[in-house]
């Protein structure tokens, strides 16, 4: 488990990470969302021991990370602009990481290179940006570390590769103790990968939620009620996050269990009432609007 408590990091007078408190549970895919400059990379660099927090602490399995090779042995960090040795091939890079990560699975790495159609002896500097990202993920997976921090690694991957990487992650999660943390500025990129998402804004964590839990507890409903009094009564009974009206049609985003909400509406015999599917994006828009942010301006 990774726990960050009141972590701050300043670059000069700018607070890159400002009082972040977050918990990343073992075995979940954690998504770290935020705009450019929100502090995602800085947080990951601190979590991987590259940077020292100015205050607060980050513990990985209850151990501080900075200058602690033992804790860092469980972490593989893929930065947004991953470094490859000059003139190195994928095999050279694998050998490089094998020196640091004794559990590096060379056999599996070669198999995965084949699967991803990356030539083992081709120079990495001739790879496309996407291929380099794939290679980074493969190196990280084969390093067999408990934690893998991916900074913008999935941004720009094509859907096929995303799916492939997703399935690899799923396999790893099923087979061993594995916790990937994925930072992205695009919520849509993480929707189908992450179990839990934390939103960073201006250096601080805006919110942290389990996606399934969020999906179960917030719903989008469109309904037409018989009278204005009914509408008022229904709305008073529900925990409404957001309400829109188009003629007589009400589109409302409501917190709570699906059955309970529908029962409350049905009690007023509405002309029409149905639950609409809610995207992760809409959930976040709704959630963050409550706390006074226009998330559309922040993330999408």
């Amino acid at each position, binding site marked *: 488990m990774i726990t960050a408590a009141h972590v701050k990091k300043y*670059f*000069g007078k700018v607070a890159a990470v400002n009082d972040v408190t977050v918990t990343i549970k073992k075995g979940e895919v954690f998504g770290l969302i935020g705009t450019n400059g929100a502090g995602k990379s800085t947080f990951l*660099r601190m979590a*991987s*021991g*590259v*940077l*020292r927090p100015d205050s607060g602490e980050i513990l990985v399995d209850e151990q501080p990370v900075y*200058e602690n*090779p*033992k804790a*860092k*042995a469980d*972490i593989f*960090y893929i*930065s947004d*602009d*991953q*470094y490859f*040795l*000059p003139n190195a091939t994928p095999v*050279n890079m694998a050998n*490089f990481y094998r*020196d*640091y*990560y*004794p559990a590096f699975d060379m056999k599996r790495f070669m198999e995965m290179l084949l699967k991803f159609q990356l030539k083992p002896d081709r120079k990495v500097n001739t790879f496309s940006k996407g291929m380099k990202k794939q290679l980074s993920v493969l190196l990280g997976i084969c390093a067999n570390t408990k934690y893998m921090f991916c900074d913008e690694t999935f941004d720009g991957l094509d859907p096929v590769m995303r799916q492939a990487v997703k399935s690899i992650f799923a396999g790893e999660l099923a087979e061993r103790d594995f916790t990937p943390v994925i930072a992205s500025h695009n919520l849509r990129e993480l929707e189908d990968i992450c179990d839990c998402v934390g939103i960073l804004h201006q250096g601080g964590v805006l919110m942290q939620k389990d996606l399934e839990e969020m999906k179960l507890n917030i719903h989008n409903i469109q309904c037409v009620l018989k009278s204005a009094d009914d509408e008022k009564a229904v709305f008073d009974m529900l925990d409404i996050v957001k309400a829109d009206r188009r003629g007589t049609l009400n589109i409302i985003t409501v917190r709570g269990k699906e059955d309970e909400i529908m029962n409350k509406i049905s009690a007023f015999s509405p002309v029409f009432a149905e639950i609409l599917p809610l995207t992760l994006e809409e959930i976040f828009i709704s959630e963050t609007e409550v706390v006074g942010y226009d998330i559309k301006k922040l993330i999408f």
Partner: protein
Amino acid sequence: MTSKNLFFKLIKQDFKKRIWCPILIFIGYFLLLEVNMLMSIENIQKYPKSYRYDVSTYVRDYFFGFGNGISGSIVICLTAFLCAISGFAYLHSKVQLDTYHSLPVSRTQLFWSKYVSGILWFLIPFGIHVLTCAGIAASKNAFTRETTASVLSYIGIQLVIFILSYSVSIIAVEITGNIIISMLGTLILFSYSAIIAILTEAMFGRFFHTYEEYAVRFGGLMSEKIWCFSPFSMIYKLFTNPKGITPETANEVFQYDDSYLWVLIAAAILYSLAAYITYLKRESEAAGRTIAFGVIEPVIKTMTVIPAAFFCGIFFSELSPNSNSESWFLFGLVFGYVILCIFMEIIFRMDLKGAFAHKKQFLFNAVCTALIFVVFRNDVLGYNTYVPSDSQLQSCAVYIDGLMNTPQRIPLLSGGELYISNDAYCMRNMEIQGNPSVMELARKAAEDGLEYTEFDYYDGIEKTAEYIETRERESSYKSISFGYKLLNGDTIYRRYVIDIDDADTLRLLSDVFNDYDYKIGAAPLFANAWNMEFAAVRCQSNFKSDDILLTAGKQSKLLATYQEEYTKLTLEEVMNTIPIGTVEFITKDKMSRRYSSYSDGMLVYPQFEETLALLKEYGFDMEEKITAEEVEAIEVTDNTQDYEAYYDHYAQGAMTYAESESITTEYTDKEQIQQILDSIVYDGFTWQVWNYNNFADDSYTVVIRLENEGTSQLTHSFIKGQIPEFIAEK
């Protein structure tokens, strides 16, 4: 995996990453060592007479013995910088830092693995080349048992120099954020103490009229008293003879000062630790910043801007027509200060808009600069008036300018000579003790604080009343230097101006000149010549010159007699007596068979009766005069016309000398010739005591043409006040 294994794996990785570095070093040292050695050996074998050593000596003392220590070390420094920048430049790259610092390896291990690998990339190719050179020497039968020690010490010392330079270069890379600034930083860290030494010399020389320095070790480049904390100064000091060059060591290949080697080793260790600590303290986010540590930014600025501003002041004042110009100095100081402050701010911020950032720092440094200027200009610390107390003093050296002008000339086996000026010789060799007049004179001179008036020259100034009056008034001013050798081993030098029209000053000066230790310490002939065998003694009288060949015993007797009489000579006698000749001890170079002077012509006075008698006995009568009958004609040239022409020509800004407009008159009348012969003195007698007895009138040059012998090589001048009327009237 044990961390020991990881350490070696990291070194292996580093090798793969920068394999170009050892390859480049390998090629460089191949050219510098093997190729250089083979060429030098070939030269020595082809032209053995041109060298003062054979191949074995060359290999042992010169090639492996640091005969070219400083130049060889510069290459080592460049290699060290190459290794440092290739190994640690990753600190400037965020991308690389993110990778390396996220890996499960401690920074300590990362640092030392890179550090050690950098040393190996130098040591392995270097070691291979040194051993190859040893093999080449052996194949030429030039490798002796002593050479083995030379080879080992060569590798050891070069390694120490490498580690010192390497560590300093790493520090420069660590405290900066990009390669260009790292290079600048390395240059500054490498030479900072040397730069400050040179600046100090220049500032002291400019602002303190009593400033004098005789650097034995550094040969005048910089004071040896200054701190040597930068590699350049330290390396320079290692390869510079602490005792200076003496007649005994002049022909030896000086290798290095082994007593100073320990300082270098300690410095190398300290700088290595400093590099390590700096590495640990350097935050990863510093990548890309000009200066990695914000805290040291103002310190760097202050330490750079202030000295540079003063250099700029000196530069502009030297550039101006009057090098003592205070206004141009101030202009340079202010201009340099402002420009450098702006320049550094731009460099630090990499942004032109940042040129005027940090106004408080700007003001602080400006105040510091102004304070330093005021301290120097007004001699706030009393530099000019400082004279050590008697209780601090062990002995004293004195150089009286223009009184015993007897430089030292050390013959070199390779031909030529090593010239040591008389003042430097006095300061090194003279030790006057127990003569209170010496310090009394020093205190009086310091208290009087006399200085020659500095004129801002312009066309025609020499004809102005003020100039003429000042020069006339200051004609009795003389320069005198003191070397106070203190009990703590330190030596302090000062140069004063004294006025010999002051009776007290003249009395004290006479006491100094009359001191036995002064004369023994001032003349190389008296101190160093006893064990030497001279090829000849060149005797010069007013009218003739001859080399007399003496046995060693006769040489010693002549030397002892001359020395005894010279040491009894008083200042009053020097000032009022015209010498009648000189004796000059001549050496002969065995290789080039060339004669050279060892002592210069030492003056012989009429009072030196025993010396004159001895010379006469040895075949040279110094008192013998020529008569008018022996002279065919005398040519007298009026120089006054020459001076006029010269000044007029010079005043027009001409860069060449004017054509001679002097008038030469030939005299053949025997009576006139005799009158001239009775009133002339050989020009060669004047320069040794010119400042205290300028007995020659240089208005005329006299050349004698002897019967049947052609024109004499000697030129004469009239004795002041004795120009015959028939010449003066003309």
